């Protein structure tokens, strides 16, 4: 097995399928995680993994040997995820803010308002996060995932998604607003200082 990605790419370009297999084994898990965050669906994420490496294989000749293979595949995976999300608009029926607010409040009431410390790390909160993520529109989710989980700058996200900077910002703002509405009842700690300060005057 080639020691480095660069060596594996060079061999794979010459038709060495075992070398390409090494690249798949090194990077497919990371691609799956990204694709799952982007699509919110394991089956779709697997499709993205397949499509990503298929495209990578076909475009190996275009890959610049000085570049980082992982970064290159990552970009392909982002595009494949976006393509897949766009191809399945019926899954993107985003809940509106009122739905989320109502849902969050109802869930919090059902939970009997246990301590936030316990809830923060609970499976229930993870479930809430997962639900809230699926309630985002395709662009909101893509922009949010790339900013929040992938640490990409708004400029980078704009280029990846083909959006103007302002459009990217607003996608992220809307996503964060929806996540807050869904999660705040679970994670917002009662803050006596804040309550007294709120009485001083609204922001």
């Amino acid at each position: 097995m080639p020691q480095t990605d660069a060596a594996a790419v060079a061999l794979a370009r010459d038709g060495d399928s075992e070398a390409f297999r090494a690249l798949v084994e090194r990077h497919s898990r990371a691609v799956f995680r990204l694709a799952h965050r982007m699509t919110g669906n394991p089956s779709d994420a697997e499709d993205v993994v397949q499509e990503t490496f298929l495209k990578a294989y076909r475009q190996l000749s275009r890959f610049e040997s000085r570049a980082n293979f992982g970064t290159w595949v990552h970009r392909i995976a982002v595009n494949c995820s976006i393509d897949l999300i766009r191809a399945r608009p019926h899954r993107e029926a985003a809940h509106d803010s009122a739905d989320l607010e109502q849902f969050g409040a109802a869930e919090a009431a059902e939970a009997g308002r246990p301590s936030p410390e316990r809830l923060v790390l609970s499976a229930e909160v993870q479930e809430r996060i997962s639900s809230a993520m699926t309630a985002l529109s395709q662009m909101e989710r893509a922009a949010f995932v790339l900013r929040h989980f992938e640490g990409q700058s708004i400029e980078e996200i704009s280029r990846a998604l083909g959006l103007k900077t302002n459009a990217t910002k607003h996608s992220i703002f809307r996503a964060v607003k929806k996540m807050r509405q869904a999660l705040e009842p679970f994670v917002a700690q009662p803050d006596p200082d804040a309550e007294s300060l709120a009485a001083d005057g609204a922001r």
Partner: protein
Amino acid sequence: MMATRHLTDDELILHYYGETAPDDEPRAAGHLQQCAPCRAEYAKLQRVLGSIDESSVAIEPSPSFERTVWARLEPNLKPVRRGWVSWVLSPAPMALAAAVVVLVVGAFFAGRATSPTPAPTAAVVSAAVEHIRERILLSEVGEHLDRSQMALVELVSTDSDTSFDMSGERSRAEQLVADNRLYRQTAEETGDVTLSELLDEIERVLTEVAATPETGSSRDLADVRRRIESRDLLFKVRIVASEIRERQKAPIQRQAGPRS
């Protein structure tokens, strides 16, 4: 006065992600230090976004994930531009050719044994060949679905607490994957969307089974079961297999119709 203007939600978000414009950052940071309501609001935002950091949104794929990915990927890496020789030598055309030979030879001897009849036209022969081809394919796909169903049922009902020998399931899955790929491609070529989608789902599961280690862990098996059950795969296989049996009967009924 600018110094007293509260930060908006959007500005707080930009600040959290370090995306505030360099010229605006000193004002945002300074205001947060001085303004308790904005600080409280920012703390709420931090808690929400921080909880998303702490929770892993992405699920971790199974230990055999890489093997499964490769098993699905490898056949597609070199788009096989199959020549006519390799196509002719593949199982389905060979079966079709054998059936046609049997039909022609049978018809020849039957013709000699009975009174002479007018020679069939090219259209009639073509229709007969097409009819036989469809019957053979339906029969083969029906049998394949039955075999797949049995394999899936065994996987779902296998009892394992820790680890178990998967070698039998693996080799059977490998064989079924090879057959399945051929039938799926045929279904795609003939535009049978329902069948090709079902065969695609079956292929994913079987590929995963074929890629598991010989001594499978209970987690491997649980992953396979989850995939089978989450997609109601067994139910779908039963439905489509039943439809195929009906389709196999249909040509016989149509043929019998005009005579009555």
